[in-house]
């Protein structure tokens, strides 16, 4: 397990400063501060409604923040559409419900964005797509449709699809929560491989085993705030906060 050096550097992959987000009058994110270095693997956990999905969805502008600053790869995330497009090209996202395009084959799902967003020629896009499908270990499913695959297979295709854009940062929003238990490990294996290759990852998940194995830092969020943040050994063995300990006992207890 590679451990990067957590700490402020002058050029982090993602810098979140005093992030505020409101849904109407509901204060979903309260003055969140987070800095993620290149190559760092962050796992975010917490009870539902704690704002963890909201936070990472703010990073690729699927949600608009109301206060504070988000800087991704040196570019500030604001109302400038050019900035937004640039950031989305470099940030890949994997969703809880896969969100594969059902009317296209697996291969087309993976080739689409590189061809129309990065303007790659078809042959190049196809080669990239097949390479990543190989990497997630389902190259034989290339011409099937998403509806014909199992949940675990679909999520692996979703990861390949995001990777085909060759992003610098990968966001995971509860990637295994919608999977049947026997399929969780095949997806986690892919994510572990990705982590070992040095990809910057921010992962919202309940899979604590994965966090222990792969994360450089584990972050616990509750009520819209970051309550605790620490390397995994420290986090699991001797967390400093009462709320963290309560949550851990609930999640790890069963």
């Amino acid at each position, binding site marked *: 397990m590679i451990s990067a050096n957590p700490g402020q550097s002058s050029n982090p992959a993602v810098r979140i400063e005093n992030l505020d987000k409101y849904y109407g009058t509901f204060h979903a994110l309260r003055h969140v501060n987070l800095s993620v270095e290149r190559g760092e693997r962050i796992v975010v956990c917490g009870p539902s409604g704690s704002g963890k999905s909201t936070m990472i969805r703010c990073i*690729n*502008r*699927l949600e608009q923040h109301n206060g504070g600053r988000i800087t991704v790869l040196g570019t500030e995330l604001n109302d400038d559409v050019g900035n937004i*497009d640039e950031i*989305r*090209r470099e*940030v*890949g*996202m994997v*969703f809880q*419900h896969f*969100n*594969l*395009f*059902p*009317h296209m084959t697996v291969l087309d799902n993976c080739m*689409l*964005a590189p061809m*129309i*967003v990065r303007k790659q020629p078809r042959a190049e896009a196809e080669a990239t797509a097949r390479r990543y499908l190989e990497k997630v270990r389902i190259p034989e499913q290339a011409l099937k449709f998403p509806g014909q695959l199992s949940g675990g297979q679909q999520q692996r295709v*979703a990861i390949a*699809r*995001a990777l085909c*854009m060759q992003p610098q940062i990968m966001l995971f929003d509860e990637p295994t929560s919608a999977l049947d238990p026997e399929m969780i490990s095949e997806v986690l294996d892919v994510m572990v491989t990705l982590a070992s290759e040095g990809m910057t990852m921010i992962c919202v998940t309940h899979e604590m085993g994965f966090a222990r194995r792969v994360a450089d830092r584990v972050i616990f969020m509750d009520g819209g705030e970051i309550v605790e943040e620490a390397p995994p050994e420290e986090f699991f063995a001797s967390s400093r906060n009462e709320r963290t300990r309560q949550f851990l006992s609930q999640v790890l207890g069963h």
Partner: protein
Amino acid sequence: MEMVVVAPPAPGRIEDLRRRFLATPLQALLSLVSLAIMVFLAWKLLNWAIFSAVFTTSGGPEACQAAAGACWSVIAARWRIILFGLYPFEEQWRSALACVTVVVMTVLSCIPAFWTGRRIALVWGAGTALYYVLMKGGVLGLAYVGEEAWGGLALTLFIFVTTCLIGFPLAICLALLRRSELPWISRTTGIVIDSVRSLPLISILFTFAIVLPFALPQWLAGDKLYRVILGSALFFSAYQAEIVRGGMQGVPSGQEEAAMALGMSYWQRIGRILLPQAMRNALPATINQFVISFKETSLVVIVGFFEILASGNAAYGTGEWRFAYVEVYAFIAFIYFVFVFSLSRYGAFLERRMSVGER
């Protein structure tokens, strides 16, 4: 001892009939009454339409009028005016060919192989262009026939085709505007759509035909036919926009989010991800709308167009054939029935096929 499974004895024919139709006194009564009605109507109809009917033109209208049954010779005598209106006699083959073009175009649109945006646009564009060239002429050695002489079934089909051709893209635009996140745009569009849908089609056609020339500068007023088609297309698009919007609402929001996360632009998302899935959802209702639109083309008779209804009225007119209105209307009804029934049956078939595919 082994259990041998044997199928229960199949009920005899008489048993089966008894069970289906005579199970209880009420059922027996219902069956009898229904049967009586069916037999009575069928007998009356067959008698009038076939057995006592006159099919030839030998006796002329007087002999026909004297006959007890239907007088189908009126169709033999007047079919040209019903189908082609006042189109010049020697050129009516062009009108017929144009109608065939429309039928072919519709049939092709129903084949799944053609269901991509590009191919449908190609089929409809080419079909309409071919229709226009055939009817209007003036090129390729064909004699020129202005729109005033277009009539009958050919005019009905033209109005239907152009209404759908203009109305469909307009509907998609309206649907996209309606679901916009920008409040001024979505609300204004909503008001426009709801107002158009509240008004009767006849009043819209009337407004476009007669009132609009006042509100337009001289050079923009155009021919009455095209103004009416525009009005008809607007009405079609208001209803179709709601259907498309319904289809869009059936596409999970995660689809657009995934597209956004991959960096796709608005038009890329709409064109490649949202619309294909939305149209698939909206297909049965869309076909239903096309069927309704075809029936509604008949309303242009009110603003003075010589489409098939008006030509039917002219066919029996006030002259020697004036008694034969039932036969003429039955003939026109049959033509409508063929088009409308096949389209709606196809729509029902599609709906069944699509609901089978869903888990």
